[in-house]
């Protein structure tokens, strides 16, 4: 790889004939960037363009001869088919619930961990651990070890207090998936918010305290405004990952009982039902949803980023 990046550099002196030096130097500066840039364009943009094209075709791979241009018919079907429409709704519900719950929990944990107390490092490590379990493994843990109605930990603990013995996944399938995801994503939110808390201006807080401000006033008028952009960043990055969630839905319910979100539906539509056109249209809709979130995300990241650049 280094060879490809250096080749244009080494070649520059010989190619000076007739071309202005400045342009060559500009290319020489760009050269180290090009391999990464070209790689990204080829591997991510080309397949998406192909998805876009396929989404306009009526194409089931079991009937390759019946392939035909279908215009917007696939989009119409995705938006009117009750199952597919339900998966759009499920995606929104799942994403909003998980992001909000993990953000609130993450905030509470970050505020607690921002204080000094005995063993803070250990507690921090314990809290990060759920985020570091392989997602499929975490989903298996919730499905079999915690939720199982016969020998799961939850019903085991309920047994001691003589509580009911619900079948968690059958009784509240979407909630079951959400709970496992909140468990995995709370540490992520906590880490971002903790970084935000630690970048506060402590002199300002001292000054407010000397002036007689209560803890709540300090939190409400100093900490929360400062954390706003970190909360936004956590929410938006969390959304981008959770909108795309496949592992938990696939593992815990296999998309059953009304938990199929768009990524799972796309997977199933093309992998099991072989409906290429339909799957692509659903895929394009996921992209449109992501673009809406991403536009906000990019704005937040760029405002944080501009701050950094102007500081440097």
């Amino acid at each position: 790889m280094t060879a490809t990046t250096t080749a244009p550099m080494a070649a520059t002196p010989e190619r000076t004939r007739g071309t202005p030096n400045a342009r060559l130097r500009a290319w020489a500066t760009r050269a180290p960037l090009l391999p990464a840039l070209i790689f990204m364009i080829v591997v991510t943009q080309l397949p998406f363009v192909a998805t876009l094209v396929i989404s306009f075709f009526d194409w089931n791979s079991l009937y390759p001869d019946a392939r035909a241009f279908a215009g917007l018919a696939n989009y119409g079907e995705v938006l009117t088919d009750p199952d597919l429409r339900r998966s759009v709704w499920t995606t929104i519900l799942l994403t909003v619930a998980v992001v909000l719950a993990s953000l609130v929990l993450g905030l509470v944990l970050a505020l607690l961990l921002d204080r000094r107390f005995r063993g803070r490092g250990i507690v921090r490590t314990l809290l990060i651990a759920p985020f570091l379990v392989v997602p499929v493994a975490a989903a298996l843990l919730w499905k079999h070890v915690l939720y199982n109605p016969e020998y799961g930990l939850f019903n085991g603990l309920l047994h001691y207090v003589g509580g009911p013995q619900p079948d968690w996944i059958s009784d509240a399938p979407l909630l079951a998936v959400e709970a496992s995801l909140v468990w995995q994503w709370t540490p992520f939110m906590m880490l971002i918010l903790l970084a935000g808390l630690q970048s506060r201006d402590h002199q300002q807080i001292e000054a407010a305290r000397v002036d007689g401000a209560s803890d709540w006033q300090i939190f409400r008028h100093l900490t929360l405004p400062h954390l706003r952009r970190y909360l936004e960043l956590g929410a938006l990055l969390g959304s981008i990952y959770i909108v795309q969630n496949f592992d938990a839905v696939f593992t815990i319910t296999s998309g059953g009982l009304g938990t199929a979100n768009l990524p799972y539906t796309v997977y199933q539509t093309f992998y099991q039902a072989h409906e290429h056109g339909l799957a692509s249209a659903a895929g394009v809709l996921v992209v449109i949803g992501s673009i809406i979130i991403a536009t906000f995300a990019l704005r937040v990241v760029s405002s944080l980023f501009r701050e950094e650049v102007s500081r440097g």
Partner: protein
Amino acid sequence: MSDATTDMPDTRTVARGTTADTRPARSHRARGAGLGVAAWLLGLLFFLPIAWMVLTSLHSEPDAATNPPSWAASLTLDGYREFFGVGGGASPWPALINSTVASLASTLLVLLLAFPAAYALSIRPVKKWTDVLFFFLSTKMLPVVAGLLPLYLFAKNTGLLDNIWLLVLLYTSMNLPIAVWMMRSFLAEVPVAVIEAAQLDGARLPTVLARVVAPIAAPGIAATALICFIFSWNELLFARVLTGVVAETAPVFLTGFITSQGLFLAKVCAASLVISLPVLAAGFAAQDKLVQGLSLGAVK
């Protein structure tokens, strides 16, 4: 870890010694201790499922599948033996090796591509470098499902289905934007004077990158590598669709347990723990840089 455990925020107020200050300071301290206990309780609560998974993995299958749970059952490594296929059953080794190869190779490729790019975007910025940086970021926001079908068709038609090297390329594209962003912020901290001095001595770009920039930015590069490794190791959707028998990765191997019933509870736990072990190790090692990587370098 590196905490000063005795320091209280109020020490200064108390030291000033006015009687008016003492009472609020004392109640403040009591509440501080209470909040410390609350943090401990929540920390343990969040860790409980993992602790329970460890305990279950060390029980025999009958002891693992009881209600109420058996806390005091004798410990055994049978779950782990079962997982490694000692008593028959599919061996996880091919999947573990595939995951190792895919994760390490793609991490290496990411570093080779991202390092020069980060250099061009930080130390010697090209024109419109912020636009380029944001292009990288925007690709990260393109959902995996957006290109999955064409990639599948491509793999099928070129015979690359069930080939670990296709995964290597895809994992590289998945992690390259994060790596570029992270490394850019690490390279920005390398003093320009050092680089200029090396160039005055006649060093060419590759030499400068390898001998001057890389050693200074080494800790940041290592953290970047660990995070890329974690993401590749965890990935399921690409692996599930594009691999089969030969190139199956560890998460795909785990999906074999999705429908398994109580008979294999200890084995499921052992499998989950063994497969999570590299990620847990890499994650704890990169703890401090984890946020920066996951937030695409936006938060330090």
